[in-house]
């Protein structure tokens, strides 16, 4: 019951927030920019042609009518036509979603698998050499520009050592389309060659995305564990003679992880944003690369569609994190 209540409580805010996001995107695309119709019509268009186009796209109507049409269209899955690919933007975005999600999921997974234990180690052996080295890693991870790190990785591992492919998502056509996740699809049909290729292409982009994410998770886990170590219940357990190992990995970690789960949710959103630059460097055919190509082509319908989709995913993730946190930590009030 409590979980249902939590979910309901959060869902109430979902639609107003998405509505606000629509308003924001609409404002950016309709009030700030240069005349999109003049852009569409080209330099040689007569005033008459421009007026026709204006009527055709509904730009001659009052702004609030345009906004209502935009919202209605969006909820029917219509984000407009891409000026560049000449295809519906929603189709373009959906087709590229799996590539980005695969990249993001694997990165979150890797950064959590590495970040949590390293954070615990840094806290348990605080002020030791290990703690200082890990601290140096976190500080670097948060200061490095992801596009530069990506280029460094390419220089060393792809160009010099030739251990990994330089860019792209797979060699050849990839496994048969089932989910769109190449790792999963190739496993499902037992296509080991595709699996190996998909895996090797993932290594560098994932390393680029996971490095700062791991740094953040490490920092939070360390702080959480240190808080827990200094708490009364740990003192009690120590006094009761519990083995140190069990206290750390069972009791302390459980409490420390509540904060980390929130953090992992936020990180998922940040990685989604980080894919824009990383996909551009690795030529990874996902949403981020689509956004960059749209920038190059001044395809601002497509950019707005991308902003809307990413924003909505971000809101959904935050919603999920809140609910998860409520489930894990009965103390949290929502």
């Amino acid at each position, binding site marked *: 019951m409590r979980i249902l209540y939590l979910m309901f409580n959060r869902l109430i805010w979902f639609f*107003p*927030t998405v509505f*606000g*996001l629509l*308003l*924001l*995107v609409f404002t*950016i*695309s309709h009030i*700030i*920019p*240069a005349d999109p119709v003049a852009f569409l019509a080209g330099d040689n268009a007569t005033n008459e042609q421009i007026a026709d186009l204006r009527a055709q796209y509904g730009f001659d109507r009052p702004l609030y009518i345009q906004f209502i049409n935009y919202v209605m269209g969006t909820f029917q899955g219509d984000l407009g036509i891409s000026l560049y690919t000449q295809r519906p933007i929603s189709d373009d975005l959906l087709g590229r979603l799996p590539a980005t999600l695969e990249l993001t999921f694997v990165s979150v997974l890797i950064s959590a698998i590495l970040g949590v234990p390293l954070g615990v180690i*840094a*806290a348990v052996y*605080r*002020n030791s050499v290990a703690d200082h080295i890990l*601290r140096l890693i976190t*500080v*670097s991870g*948060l*200061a*490095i*520009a*992801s*596009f*530069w790190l990506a*280029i*460094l990785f*390419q*220089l060393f591992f792809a*160009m010099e050592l030739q251990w990994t492919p330089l860019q792209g998502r797979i060699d050849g056509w990839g496994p048969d389309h089932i989910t769109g996740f190449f790792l999963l699809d190739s496993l499902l049909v037992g296509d080991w060659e595709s699996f190996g290729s998909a895996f090797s292409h993932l290594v560098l982009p994932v390393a680029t995305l996971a490095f700062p994410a791991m740094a953040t998770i490490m*920092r939070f886990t*360390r*702080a959480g564990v*240190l*808080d827990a170590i200094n708490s009364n219940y740990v003192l009690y357990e120590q006094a009761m003679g519990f083995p140190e190992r069990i206290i750390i990995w069972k009791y302390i970690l459980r409490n420390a992880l509540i904060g980390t789960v929130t953090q992992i949710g936020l990180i998922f*959103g*940040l990685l*989604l*944003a*980080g894919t*824009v*630059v990383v996909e*551009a*460097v690795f030529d990874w055919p996902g949403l981020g690369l689509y*956004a*960059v190509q749209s*920038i*190059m082509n*001044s395809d*601002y319908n497509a*950019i*707005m569609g*991308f*902003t809307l989709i*990413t*924003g909505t995913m*971000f*809101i959904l993730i*935050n919603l999920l994190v809140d609910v998860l946190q409520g489930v894990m930590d009965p103390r949290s009030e929502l």
Partner: protein
Amino acid sequence: MIETIKFLIKKLAQDRTAAIGVFLILSLILVAIFAPILATHPADITEFHPPERLLGPSAEHYFGTDRMGSDIYSRLLYGARITIAIALIAISVSVIIGVPIGLLAGYYRNWVSDALMRVSDIFLAVPQIILAIAIAQTLGPSIQNVILALSATYWPFWTRLVYAETRSALNEPYVEASIALGASPSRVMILHVLPNISSSIIVRTTIGMGGTILTAAALGFLGLGPPPPSPEWGRTIAESREFLPEAWWYAAAPGIAIFLVVMGFNLLGDGLRDILDPRTRRSKGG
């Protein structure tokens, strides 16, 4: 005020990592101010020398030359000016917009304050770089538009922070006392609440500088920053990609510059937090 600054300087000097941060930031500022003196080829910001293109580091060109034959070292120094200008103005605007809204929304408890917070929530609902891309794209590539895009996306961070801090400050006895004595809302906010939440604002602003510089560089890298021949660091890295791995110095210098500057602000931010907020000592908070 002078006492506080003296105290801060003394504490910062004792904290080794914060001192490194201060050193890095001061270097950036000095480099930006004295760029025309320090630069070996100051004319290369706009001048090209095609015969000397893509030369490696040497005594003549410390960090080599770029695709136009311009001196990368000199361009890097001028790039520091752009970085400082963008980050400083964008952050100042964000603070000037974000802090008063947070104060008002925190002080009053009515529908206006709810509405203000909902608006800032919507801005926070989109990852910053994506909103900045959308805005910078519609406005076109230039320094002013990068600053505008960053200000428009970063102000809610301060609103959120100031809102939460104001709400908790309002429960403090000294604020209750001044309200009971009949102080006007603006007096309470400016003279009693603001000074007491300023340390959180300072810490957030310092760390925010690092984040803003990274986002600005990413915008430049994507071609949304100031147009060529601007020596902006992100753009320089983007230009270098064609010439890798041979011209490795081309990408190395601006990348290291960004890294050191952001590192400087992060270290100083961490140090300031330890000093200003005794609740999170480094041994505890990390």
